[in-house]
């Protein structure tokens, strides 16, 4: 049977996260994503120069709503972002981390921009892998803390966010002056995604340093909406739409670990099977679905899920 192949006019932007000494930073390695000239894993049709990356989440406080099954792999380190980060790298083999400055949220500890910047500095000193740094996901508070955080990581070419319509100006300006890439998030809406990309690049920010977050839905919680938006975005990129050519990130861990299927104990619902594997499996299934939709970065939580998806990526990247 003949393989029906498509010849695309364009490709997804390639983005580098991190800076080694050569690039003026202190990281020991870089992460390169994007650059594909075809749909996910269609090696027979085009070139996929970089595998999707996995970033492990590290919080600056102990997450209060994580179930025991998710806290367990990080026990002894929760509440200490430096130790947590080290554990991810040393024990779980992370080559990219996502530092979440949750403590700055007004409803959590309302920590200051200075606290957040200090945390970022400590983590950058403790580990040498590239960093994704995100605030507390409250648009207003993030405009306070991101400029300080961005400056603290100046020259390290981090991926910083999350810029939304309400705060993109401040976050873009910070990333611009400190040399970081940016995460641009829109609410599962391809038109708004494109608009935000235009607004950010209109500020003089290079479209080649934008990563899109089309918002993430966990399996059973709207995954297919995001999936179809991502597919359309990827097709637009391959057809040459420069304002849709950005790589995409999915915050899978954040979404999966708040759904009842991942959290509810087996005493409560015995027919759902053992909780020890149920949550990680939910995270794996969600992640692998997004890989097929075109995800370039998966931000994940459970080490077992990370390990499994890492293996899947190796398999999917095999050309035969």
């Amino acid at each position, binding site marked *: 049977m003949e393989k029906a192949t498509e010849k695309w006019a364009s490709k997804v932007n390639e983005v580098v996260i991190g800076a080694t000494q050569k690039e003026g930073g202190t990281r020991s390695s870089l992460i390169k994503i994007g650059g594909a000239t075809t749909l996910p894993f269609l090696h027979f049709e085009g070139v996929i120069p970089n595998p999707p990356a996995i970033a492990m989440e590290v919080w600056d406080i102990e997450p209060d709503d994580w179930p025991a099954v998710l806290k367990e792999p990080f026990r002894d380190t929760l509440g200490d972002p430096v130790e947590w980060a080290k554990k991810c790298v040393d024990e779980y083999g992370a080559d990219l981390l996502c530092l979440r400055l949750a403590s700055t949220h007004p409803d959590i500890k309302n920590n200051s921009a200075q606290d957040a910047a200090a945390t970022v500095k400590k983590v950058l000193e403790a580990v040498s892998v590239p960093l994704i740094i995100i605030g507390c996901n409250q648009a207003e508070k993030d405009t306070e803390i991101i400029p300080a955080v961005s400056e603290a990581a100046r020259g390290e070419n981090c991926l910083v966010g999350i810029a939304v319509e309400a705060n993109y100006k401040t976050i873009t300006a910070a990333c611009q002056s400190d040399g970081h890439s940016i995460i641009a998030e829109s609410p599962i809406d*391809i*038109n*708004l*995604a*494109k*608009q935000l990309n*235009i*607004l950010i*690049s*209109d500020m003089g920010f290079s*479209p080649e340093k934008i990563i899109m977050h089309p918002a993430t839905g966990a399996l059973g919680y709207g995954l297919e909406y995001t999936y179809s938006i991502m597919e*359309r975005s990827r097709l*637009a990129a391959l057809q*040459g*739409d*420069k*304002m*849709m050519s950005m790589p995409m990130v999915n915050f899978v861990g954040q979404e999966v670990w708040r759904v009842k299927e991942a959290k509810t104990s087996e005493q409560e619902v015995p027919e759902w099977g053992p909780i020890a594997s149920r949550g990680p499996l939910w995270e794996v299934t969600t992640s692998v679905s997004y890989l097929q939709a075109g995800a370039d970065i998966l931000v994940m939580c459970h080490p077992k899920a990370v390990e499994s998806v890492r293996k899947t990526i190796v398999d999917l990247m095999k050309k035969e």
Partner: protein
Amino acid sequence: MFIIGERINGMFKDVAKAIKEGDKAIIQDLARQQMEAGADALDVNVGPAPEEPLRAMEWLVTTIGEVTDAPLAIDTTKFEIMESGLKLCKSKGIINSTSGDKEKLDRLLPLARKYNASIIGLTMNKSGIPQDAQSRAEIAAQIVTSAQEQGLAMSDLYIDAVILPVNVAQDHSREVLETIRQCKLLCDPPPRTILGLSNVSQKTLDRSLVNRTYLAMAVASGLDAAIVDPLDKDLMNSMITAELLMGKQIYCDNYLQAYRKK
């Protein structure tokens, strides 16, 4: 939409004067302005005036090549001028144009192959421009067949269904749109379709309005390329909006700007 800028044509007084006086700046400004306004290629036509049209074409192509690498559409009916223009093109050349007559196709298609150029095929022949879509499509089919025999890729063949001024040949505007649709059924992959748009509005009172309205209609019929004045901003906005409505671009509030960032 593949836009070929029409402004570097000796029919325009400024261009005729520049050719006569050897004034590079006027030509180079026009080249730059058209590219900035969204042209993907530039048409080059020496017009009727020059005493030495071959030398004028060589001068124009070289002069434009000094400021842009854009593909150039060498717009002439003279074979020798066509070849000398193609020879000097820095990037892809476009032969503008051939009719459906065998003797023309037999000379110009090999020329396209030789210089790896695209070619515009007009749906007309010695008998003139057909009245209806059916006859236009028949000529288009002959051009397609000849091009295939010569091994030209369909992505390098542009069929121009030849629009006539609406004030003298009103029925043609509908027939041309129908021809554009029929061209897409000629083969798979189909040839591209193009229009020398401005002809539709010759001697009408509001040329820009007629041009942009017809362009939008042609986009809806599947037009791939057009020879237009890209400096007409209203026209370009209509084209971009028509393509948006045809689903060729993902909507966002600043879609005009998004198109121009491509």
